[in-house]
């Protein structure tokens, strides 16, 4: 029932064909793994007769109704580094440091469907060749032979083709991440997703006709989230604000359901990589999106964390971020102030520069994202030495709403070393028409603090200034909290 395959080279993955029956597609799986995994993976454990809840949901509702006989069980592959050995008789691992999880890279379920056999998969980005630097992940528990393992990753799978397509798979990936990451969301199986997309039971092969964006919105709404659907405007050539908010939501830790209508394709966007910091010859305000080199996507045609360039490659035949023309972000309730508003408000804050001491607008890189008031306080507590005690005391006592937009202002020099000069905290529950939707705006020298417990008072009456003591640093630490840095192995 269990077979251990040591890997000395990628070619050894070909042994999967000997040990796994053809209905699980071992030949294609071996090639996919050989093309996409790094050489840090030194062993694969094959687990047979695995009952996979996602496959079973499609088996009970589709495959078992077909004339061709499909098996009910799956095969699961587990990936390990070179320090682990496996005793096939005792069915036990030997691990030098007794920390098996530290040497475990995740799993891949194989479905007995003949075509598109890669089922639920959670792989560590660390062993994915070419994975981007920052990836949205959650902890996924794995029970294997009495061992309780953990892998940090983002769920992926092949589309079934006949009962689900790329868009169902992208919805499933995002929602499975949510159910693992946030305990307020329940788990939805593959068949649940096909049912949630329609107002009625679509039955049979209807789901394979594809999904519309409205169906995907419905899936996320049915799952208890509050989906926001953003489409690129066509009145401007590139609509940079569309991409700036796309990257802002990723920075916030929200994976995106992204559509490429020209290709009829949908993927989940789950991470990004910044380009090497540069010094520009011509000054001009930039945004974090301008520094993004590539996005990481979960595309059901590839292993997870497939890297796509931000701009089309001159000779590339694949797609780039510019092919994405709409996305859905499944937000929690209470994010009312849209990213488009933050995108326009952020540069206007330079008008307060004379009070707060912001860097020159033309030399600034702006980055914005959503977080919670609690996460902000945790971050500030963690970096307490960087903050004037009076400012820290204010941050701890301002009655933030649950969600806040953070805008960070950095010079090129600070950006290169992960620092920021100033930070604005915007109320994510603010109205579009508010002149001052802020809780706080501070630099290294000054702070403006806003009393949002009073509605309708004049601007200056509802705010106060604070002169900050010099804490002796060259910039605050950039608030990078939501994505996991990839440690390539």
């Amino acid at each position: 029932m269990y077979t251990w395959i040591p890997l000395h080279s990628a070619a050894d993955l070909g042994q999967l064909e000997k040990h796994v029956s053809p209905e699980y597609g071992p030949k294609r799986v071996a090639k996919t793994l050989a093309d996409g995994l790094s050489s840090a993976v030194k062993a694969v454990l094959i687990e047979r007769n695995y009952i996979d809840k996602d496959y079973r949901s499609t088996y009970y509702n589709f495959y078992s109704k077909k004339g061709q006989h499909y098996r009910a069980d799956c095969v699961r592959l587990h990936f390990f580094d070179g320090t682990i050995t496996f005793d096939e008789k005792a069915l036990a691992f030997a691990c030098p440091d007794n920390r098996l999880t530290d040497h475990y890279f995740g799993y891949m379920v194989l479905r007995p469907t003949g075509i598109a056999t890669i089922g639920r998969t959670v792989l560590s980005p660390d062993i994915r060749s070419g994975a981007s630097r920052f990836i949205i992940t959650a902890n996924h528990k794995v029970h294997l032979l009495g061992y309780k393992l953990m892998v940090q990753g983002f769920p992926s799978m092949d589309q079934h083709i006949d009962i689900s397509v790329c868009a169902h798979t992208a919805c499933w990936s995002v929602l499975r991440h949510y159910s693992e990451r946030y305990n307020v969301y329940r788990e939805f199986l593959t068949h649940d997703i096909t049912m949630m997309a329609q107002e009625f039971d679509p039955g049979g092969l209807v789901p394979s006709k594809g999904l519309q964006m409205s169906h995907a919105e419905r899936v996320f709404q049915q799952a208890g989230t509050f989906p926001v659907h953003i489409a690129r405007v066509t009145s401007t050539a590139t609509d940079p604000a569309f991409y700036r908010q796309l990257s802002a939501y990723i920075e916030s830790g929200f994976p995106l359901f992204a559509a490429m209508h020209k290709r009829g394709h949908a993927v989940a966007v789950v991470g990004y990589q910044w380009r090497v910091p540069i010094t520009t010859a011509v000054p001009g305000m930039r945004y974090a999106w301008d520094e993004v080199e590539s996005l990481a996507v979960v595309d059901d045609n590839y292993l997870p964390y497939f890297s796509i360039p931000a701009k089309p490659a001159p000779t590339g035949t694949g797609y780039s971020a510019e092919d994405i023309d709409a996305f859905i972000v499944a937000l929690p309730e209470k994010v009312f102030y849209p990213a488009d508003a933050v995108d326009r408000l952020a540069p206007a804050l330079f008008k307060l520069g004379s009070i707060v001491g912001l860097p020159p607008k033309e030399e600034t890189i702006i980055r914005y994202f959503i977080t919670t008031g609690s996460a902000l306080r945790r971050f500030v507590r963690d970096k307490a030495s960087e903050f004037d005690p009076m400012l820290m005391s204010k941050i701890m006592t301002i009655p933030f709403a649950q969600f806040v937009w953070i805008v960070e202002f950095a010079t090129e020099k600070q950006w290169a070393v992960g620092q920021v000069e100033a930070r604005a905290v915007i109320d994510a529950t603010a109205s579009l028409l508010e002149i001052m939707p802020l809780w706080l705006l501070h630099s290294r020298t000054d702070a403006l603090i806003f009393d949002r417990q009073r509605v309708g008072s004049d601007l200056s009456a509802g705010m106060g200034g604070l002169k900050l003591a010099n804490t002796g640093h060259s910039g605050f630490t950039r608030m990078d909290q939501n994505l996991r840095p990839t440690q390539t192995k």
Partner: protein
Amino acid sequence: MSKDDESTISEVTKGLTPVDPKALEDFEREMNEQVIPEIKAVVEERRVRAAESRQLQLKYLTTHSSVLRSLS
């Protein structure tokens, strides 16, 4: 409003220095005349574009042929 609520409100700006209203004039003007109208316009434009893109079909089956080839 209770006295407790009142004390919470005063806590936010307690110990802070007043801000000169003149220093806010530029910002207020920019928000009223430029930023808020732009926000309203772009939010409406996004709503229209989202409504248009809602009906577009997403269906991509490229793995199919490659999978069948790999089985053959």
